[in-house]
């Protein structure tokens, strides 16, 4: 039901987070906290694996946009992979598929 994420570092100067469940107005604050903590802790690019992310809405997009701004200031980037069709559609209708780097 709720958004969960797990974060793990690897050696190539990039790091991964797995998003799970639902990111909406209820879970977005917790997601933001975890995302920011991960960004602070590390220096590489961020890879978000969304294979288990069932649902996201504009509240979640807002958190991601905020994170991307912080990353870009530090010349870092966010890569998003394995989006389910419904979540991918959210990125495409808002044009954010051109702002974030979406991987298959």
């Amino acid at each position, binding site marked *: *039901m709720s958004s969960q994420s797990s974060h793990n570092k690897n050696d190539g100067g990039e790091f991964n987070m797995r998003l799970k469940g*639902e990111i*909406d*107005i*209820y879970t977005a604050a917790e997601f933001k906290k975890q995302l920011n903590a991960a960004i602070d802790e590390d220096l590489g690019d961020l890879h978000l694996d969304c294979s288990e992310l069932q*649902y996201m*809405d*504009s*509240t979640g*997009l*807002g*958190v991601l*946009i*905020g994170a*991307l*701004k912080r990353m870009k200031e530090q010349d870092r980037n966010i890569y998003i992979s394995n989006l389910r*069709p*419904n979540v991918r*559609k*959210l990125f495409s*209708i*808002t*044009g*954010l598929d*051109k*702002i974030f780097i979406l991987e298959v």
Partner: protein
Amino acid sequence: MSLVDSVQNAVVKNDCEDQVVLVLPNKPEYVSVARLAVSGIAGRMGFDVETVEDIKLALAEACTNAIKHGCCEEYSEYRIEFGIGQKCLTISITDKGCGMDKKAICQPDLKNPREGGLGIFIISTLMDRVEFETAPEAGLTITMKKYLGV
């Protein structure tokens, strides 16, 4: 006065429609209840899986707005009406806020993405018709329609 008792919905009820009403507290944890309810309603009406997802998302955006912008008091509630017709699902969300300043709606600007301002754009993109109505002292009513098999 409670929303359940007081709101006169602005949209005229079609007699061929079934009506379902859901009243929720203005708390983030209940938006998922609205999503579950509408997925049951839309699924049973015969919308395909992708469209059901679209309708869920559009409704969740409107609920999120009712919670974020549509409450003058700390503890409040908002009301969702579903009109279930043969060919069309109509959803009205009415809050107890101060109504909406239409100038607040703008297209998202990709050159300068903001953290907010996407909700109404998403609703308009996913639904077939969207209308806003502010009744005096009754907050905003946003009414959205989705047609079957279009």
